[in-house]
């Protein structure tokens, strides 16, 4: 059993989860994920790691409440326990001195891009961070990014903070901000990673995405996380989750992610009340 140290909503529907998992801390690196189960009946699900504390032996993730299993996670309180917490899994995000790197985060990926930005900063890069959300109230951790970035840029759909619009404005934002990144790394929802890859292709900037498919074991055994990269089938769990965004078959990936959409929310909708469908 693994003890919950902290679980709190840091933005509407976005939760920070910190778990006592000393066995995971030792080898965890930016870009990794863990697989956990909220209870004995729960699914195994992957969560990207957003931070860790080697001394306390804790690992932190940010997750979005979507279906039945994330709803269970969202109800956990400090002191509760969960039955499974396995990791670190996945290949590490490549960290080297690339020069100037733009780290883009959205949704839960604002959390998981943070250790990437921190490691790149420590490796001597000039790091710029771009955080994107529907509205200002869905942004978080800006102060953490400020410490490891030359600048933190915000983009909101409603214009409540920073640039108004969507990540598709990136080419224009790069010009306005006078940025010429040698590499772009995106952690966030599939749509955001796909759109970023689309607009950076024309700019000729290498773009790394941290893929987030459905997984079960997370160790290469089941193949549910497969995706097509440069025409070849890859398993996100062992071959990734980082891939070159320009090589990913996004259309296929988006469809595969929707495989269990109806079932995901089914237990949430089920009600014993006869008048409630």
């Amino acid at each position, binding site marked *: 059993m693994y003890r919950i140290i902290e679980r709190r909503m840091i933005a509407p529907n976005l939760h920070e989860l910190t778990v006592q998992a000393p066995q995971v801390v030792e080898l965890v690196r930016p870009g990794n994920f863990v697989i956990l189960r909220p209870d004995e*009946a729960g699914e195994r699900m992957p969560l990207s790691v957003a931070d860790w504390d080697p001394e306390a032996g804790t690992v932190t993730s940010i997750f979005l409440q979507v279906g039945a299993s994330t709803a269970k996670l969202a109800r956990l309180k400090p002191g509760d326990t969960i039955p499974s917490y396995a990791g670190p899994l996945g290949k590490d995000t490549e960290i080297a001195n690339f020069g100037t790197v733009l780290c883009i985060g959205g949704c839960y990926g604002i959390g998981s891009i943070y250790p990437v930005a921190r490691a790149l900063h420590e490796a001597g890069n000039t790091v710029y961070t771009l955080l994107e959300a529907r509205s200002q109230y869905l942004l978080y951790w800006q102060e953490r990014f400020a410490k490891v970035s030359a600048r933190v840029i915000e983009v909101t759909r409603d214009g409540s903070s920073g640039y108004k619009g969507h990540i598709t404005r990136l080419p224009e934002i790069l010009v306005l901000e006078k940025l010429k990144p040698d590499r772009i790394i995106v952690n966030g929802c599939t749509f955001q990673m796909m759109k970023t890859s689309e607009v950076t292709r024309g700019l000729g900037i290498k773009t790394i995405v941290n893929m987030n498919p459905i997984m079960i074991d997370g160790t290469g055994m089941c*193949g549910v996380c497969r995706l097509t990269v440069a025409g070849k089938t890859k398993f996100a769990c062992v071959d990734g989750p980082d891939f070159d965004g320009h090589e990913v078959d996004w259309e296929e990936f988006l469809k595969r992610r929707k495989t269990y959409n109806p079932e995901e929310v089914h*237990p949430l909708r089920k009600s014993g009340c006869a008048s409630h469908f």
Partner: protein
Amino acid sequence: MCLSFLKLEGESRLSKRIDPKKRPMPKQEPFERIRNFEEVALGYTPELAREEASRCLSCKKPFCIEGCPVSIDIPRFIQHIVEGDFSGGIKKLKEKNALPAVCGRVCPQEDQCEKVCVLGKKNEPVAIGRLERFLADWEAASGVIEKPEMAPPNKKKVAVVGSGPAGITVASDLAVLGYEVSMFEALHEAGGVLTYGIPEFRLPKAIVRREVEYVKSLGVKLHFDFIVGKTRTVDNLLKEFDAIFIGAGAGLPWFMEIPGENLNGVFSANEYLTRCNLMKGFRFPAYNTPLKRASRVAVFGGGNVAMDGARTALRLGADEVHIVYRRSRSEMPARLEELENAEEEGVMFDYLTLPIRLIGNEQGWLTEIECLRMELGEPDESGRRRPVPVKGSEFRMKVDAAVCAIGNSPNPLIPMTTPGLDIGKKGNIEANEETGMTSRKRIWAGGDVVTGAATVISAMGAGRKAAKSIHETLSQ
């Protein structure tokens, strides 16, 4: 002339005394069992077991022992059954086999002990597997589990990677010899393929848990959610342990590499079975892991895993389940018993059929499979006649799910993260067949991670040899 007369007389005497057929084992009726996930075969009663056991000739030179990968003293345990001394029988069995309830159910006895049984030359061999299962179930029902004599602790520490059949054998053998054994399991339940792969109706998970409890009762420590190669590397573990045994299994599924394989509704057998067995998807939504309930399912492959996939699909309510296999019935690698069970249950067999393309709708869901008819040509390296496509024989099958059960290779996580470990062409860890020793000191390996997907008992055989070799090496 004279000699052959004698032989004939001898045989006729034999057949008078001994029933030519095995005692059939009671089974759930097909129409009933396809609606549940309960075990199909119900096991012998004590009476049936004693009757069957009395067919054994107690040969002076028993071939069956040689036919067994772990050399169980088969005639002796059977003799105990004849005498009604079931407790003596289970003791004898467990001298060589830590998992009798599992092996009695899933071992391919027809290719091993029963294949060489003298009775089998003219009649049916003794039902050794069913008798093994009987004793194991009898012991479990009695509630008194015999423990072997334990050597005093020798303070030496061994890590076992993977809690499947190979790992369980190594761990229990070494624990009995006085070693401090820690077993590392990547998933949240022990048993490896016995837990995630083989379905409930063939091997109830309660039995696997019982066997795991037994290994724990010998003092073996189990660590779950621990992925060796990720959570810690083999080299990290070598700092703490005197020796390591790698029994990580063959956990990387093969796909057919044909167009459309990433459509929704196309599963590896590992995914399909893991959702059902390990995650209990057949009880969705009480268990949260969903499993698509398709109405027309095609399963590719002809082995036991294909049978498991097809029979699982039936139990999940499919109207029609097809096994699509490129060779014919006689080349199928599945056990005859499993093939017959699948046939009885109404699985349809499309022999000499090769899927060449999977076709989907706009939403990315599988709707049809394009196949080619095959015919058998000259024998290939495996000695089986090679299937050759028939020109212009393309046809389509309407399906809404496909399960790919064409094999697995060893999991790459340990090979990728353990420098100096010799790796074979198929990604397998190279290990000595007799000792399980790898190219690196203090590291042994065995089971599917060495051989590629094989059987439970061959993994146990490899575990037994490795345990012996580890003991010899560490005692020096």
